[in-house]
């Protein structure tokens, strides 16, 4: 029986990927689990394993192709024979006279395993909108295509101010990757230009940042923390951690400090459900760490930071950053975050305004630590100037969920812990 392998849903709203490499050829005998293709999503490189054991009878993609979730990639013959068997007859009574497929498109190809599951009303809608059911990403149970799926595919949205439906041009979303279109002038009038396609991570970042910035009222509170003591602690234990395979960086301490603050301020570890008018508080602590890679900004997530020791975190963070820079991080590791930490300090910056990693509600930023002249009060009360290592920190909040006072309190707590390593010891679990 011939079976087809379609691009599965990879989560995180990923709808389109690029084929990097095809690892099999027509005629190959493939076992379940063997790698068929290598694809690149906006975030990671993924290997697609075969869901079937059988012989490859058709490969419908090649390296460089951009494919959408639901598209057929490879066709197999499940019986192991080298020729494909005839596909099962359409669900029409027999012996019917030959029916030329005038309106077959509306019924959907559904691969070779039968018609696409969809209710009669949905099928009629698909006919009316000129949508091929076989190309729609199903959201119903076990691959059922719903009316909403069809409408979304045809470019309609349920909100009243939605853009007019795009009939039979289903592969282009209404908005571009970078947000609603505005007409650009022809720049070549003034000089030479070079066009670089907006792809992969850059494209995803453009879309997400535009969405986050336009939807979230961002408010930032900044501070500077005296980490002289923390830094000497770090220097003392750096070697031990390196021996364990990790790197003891300020980010690691920040992860712990931030997690302690999240436990005390649960609304920072939440998401806003505007539709249902509720704030979803999360009782787990998965912190994303912004990583700068040659391909762009990627944010891998460290899970359950509250239950891991500093050593654990140092090792894990080191591994994760390496994998991320090598583009070997799995999609799973990029998902599930509740809060994000971004450290631009390694590049030397002091301050910057961060954009919240939607659907989170806050983001913690750290700059480069510098020796600065600071007023220190001696035990006898006299002020004097000392050179102290000062770390700029900031918290940016979603003002729909949090207020300025919350931001300040949060930051004060984190600052307090970073300034006094003993407090870090006492407050972390």
């Amino acid at each position, binding site marked *: 029986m011939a079976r087809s392998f379609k691009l599965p849903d990879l989560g995180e709203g990923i709808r389109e990927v690029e084929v990097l490499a095809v690892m099999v050829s027509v005629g190959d005998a493939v076992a379940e689990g063997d790698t068929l293709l290598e694809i690149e999503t906006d975030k990671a490189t993924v290997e697609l394993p075969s869901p079937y054991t059988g012989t490859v009878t058709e490969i419908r993609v090649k390296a460089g192709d951009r494919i959408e979730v639901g598209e057929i990639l490879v066709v197999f013959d499940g019986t192991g024979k080298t020729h494909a068997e005839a596909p099962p007859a359409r*669900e029409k009574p027999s012996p*019917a*006279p030959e029916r030329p497929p*005038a309106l077959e498109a509306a*019924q959907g190809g559904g691969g070779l395993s039968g*018609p696409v*599951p969809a*209710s009669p009303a949905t099928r009629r809608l698909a006919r009316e909108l000129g949508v091929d059911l076989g190309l729609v990403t199903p959201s119903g149970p076990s691959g059922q295509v719903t009316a909403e799926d069809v409408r979304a595919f045809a470019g309609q949205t349920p909100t009243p101010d939605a853009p007019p439906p795009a009939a039979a041009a289903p592969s282009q979303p209404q908005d571009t990757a970078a947000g609603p279109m505005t007409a650009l002038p022809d720049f070549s009038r003034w000089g030479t230009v070079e066009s670089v396609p907006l792809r992969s991570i850059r494209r995803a970042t453009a879309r997400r940042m535009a969405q986050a910035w336009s939807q979230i009222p961002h408010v930032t509170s900044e501070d500077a923390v005296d980490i002289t003591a923390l830094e000497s602690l770090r220097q003392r234990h750096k070697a031990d951690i390196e021996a364990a395979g990790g790197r003891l960086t300020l980010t690691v301490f920040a992860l712990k400090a931030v997690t302690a603050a999240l436990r005390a301020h649960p609304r920072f570890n939440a998401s806003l459900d505007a539709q249902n008018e509720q704030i979803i508080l999360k009782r787990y602590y998965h912190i994303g760490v912004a990583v700068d890679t040659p391909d762009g900004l990627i944010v891998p997530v460290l899970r359950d930071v509250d239950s891991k020791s500093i050593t654990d975190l140092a090792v894990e963070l080191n591994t994760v950053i390496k994998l991320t820079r090598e583009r070997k991080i799995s999609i799973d590791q990029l998902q599930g975050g509740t809060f994000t930490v971004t450290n631009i300090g390694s590049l030397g910056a002091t301050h910057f305004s961060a954009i919240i990693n939607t659907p989170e509600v806050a983001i913690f930023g750290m700059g480069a630590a510098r020796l600065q002249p600071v007023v220190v009060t001696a035990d006898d009360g006299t002020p004097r100037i000392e050179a102290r290592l000062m770390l700029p920190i900031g918290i940016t909040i979603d003002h729909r969920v949090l207020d300025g006072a919350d931001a300040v309190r949060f930051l004060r707590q984190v600052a307090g812990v970073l300034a006094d390593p003993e407090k870090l010891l006492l407050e972390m679990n």
Partner: protein
Amino acid sequence: MVMGELSIETELLVIGGGPAGYAAAFRAADLGLDVTLVELGQAPGGVCLFRGCIPSKTYLHLAQLIEDARHADAMGIRFDPPIIDTRGLRDWKQQVVERLSRGLSSLCRQRNVQLIRGRAVFEDSRRVRLMESEIRRIQFQHAILATGSRPVTLPDVPVRKNGRVMTSTGALELADIPQTLLVIGGGYVGLELGSVYAALGSRVTVVEQSDRLLAGVDVDLVEPLRRRLEKIFARILLKTAVSSLQESPHNVKAILKGRDGTLQETFERVLIAVGRTPNSRGLGLEHTDVVRDARGFVIVDAGQRTGDEHILAAGDITGGMLLAHKATREGKVAAEVIAGKPSAFDVRAMPAVVYTNPQIAWCGLTEEAARAQKRAVSVQRFPWRFSGRALSMDAADGLTKIIADPDSGRILGVGIVGRETEGLIAEGVLAVELGALAEDLALVIHAHPTLSETEGEAAEIFLGSATHILPSKRKA
């Protein structure tokens, strides 16, 4: 045009007033088209109303009544054998038919469908000549061909109006109740009408050329019926063909060639029920671009369009399963397509019912079809002997089975044999059309005690645990 000839113009001409034709005409009228319906008979309704579905089901209901009364003896109520008044039966049937016919005629009028009695013959793709009518010609923009089908007769065997050799048409006239009846053909028509005559008192012999009754229906569904029919029919002769029939004033001599040799027997009446053939000859279709297949069925696409851009077709004339509900849907699709809608015949679960006792009903993929397609399916059967309702009705010899996709549990087909399956199958049809999973059917509540529970329990077997039947060792 000759002077004095009456000629009319219409937007949509529907030829044939059966389930396909009148459904098309009504839908088109509702969509605002100007519709003319040409019908050969006295009134719209077609074979279904006058010589098929309605009369047969009217009699079958009474046949079941007679059998139920007989069986009540074992349950504590003894009825005397009934007195059958054939005239009363005919009158009753006539009443039912006439009531429905009046309804249809009235709907025609209320919808401003111009109803013309006559026989249409195509002169070209835009014009028909009307025979047996005052109106001579009709010019149309679009036409829907819905002339239906008629029973197949045997070569060299004339079927006369009041003769002893009948087709279903004659059998439903119920001229009398013959002492002996030969039914040629083990399909649903032969078995249904044979059951009626058997209940009324005839000794019925069924001959069937193939090795099984109801070819095309899954054997596990036919088996309980076969057991019952063996009791009410005098004989069922499989792998037997009729090599000759000789009609004389008082009986018919039949020569039957079967497994055990040749048999010559005399019967009072003979019913030929070996299939139906399309009414596509003598329509002048050769003057149009309509294409027919080797058996005369008109070839259409999913929008009911024929080879001729002005002519669509619907119902038995297009072949496939010769069912009134298929015809009705096709008629509607044709009307909608002409009205400019993107309509299509897009049916995944066509139900079919055999109104014998027990009844058989099925829809969607059958086990046999799955085997032929070499498609892996999971089949779960719920025997009715475990159903409280079935036992309380003395209908324990029944079966509900669900055919599903082994991976997703998506319901692909349902088959039921037992009492009242005609109504039970509707749930199966809905399930298949919606793309429902066995899980969905198992999770909806079926009232207790009803026969519908058998569908829920069959679905539960998929999930590994139905209440009234032990789970199998293998996980579903």
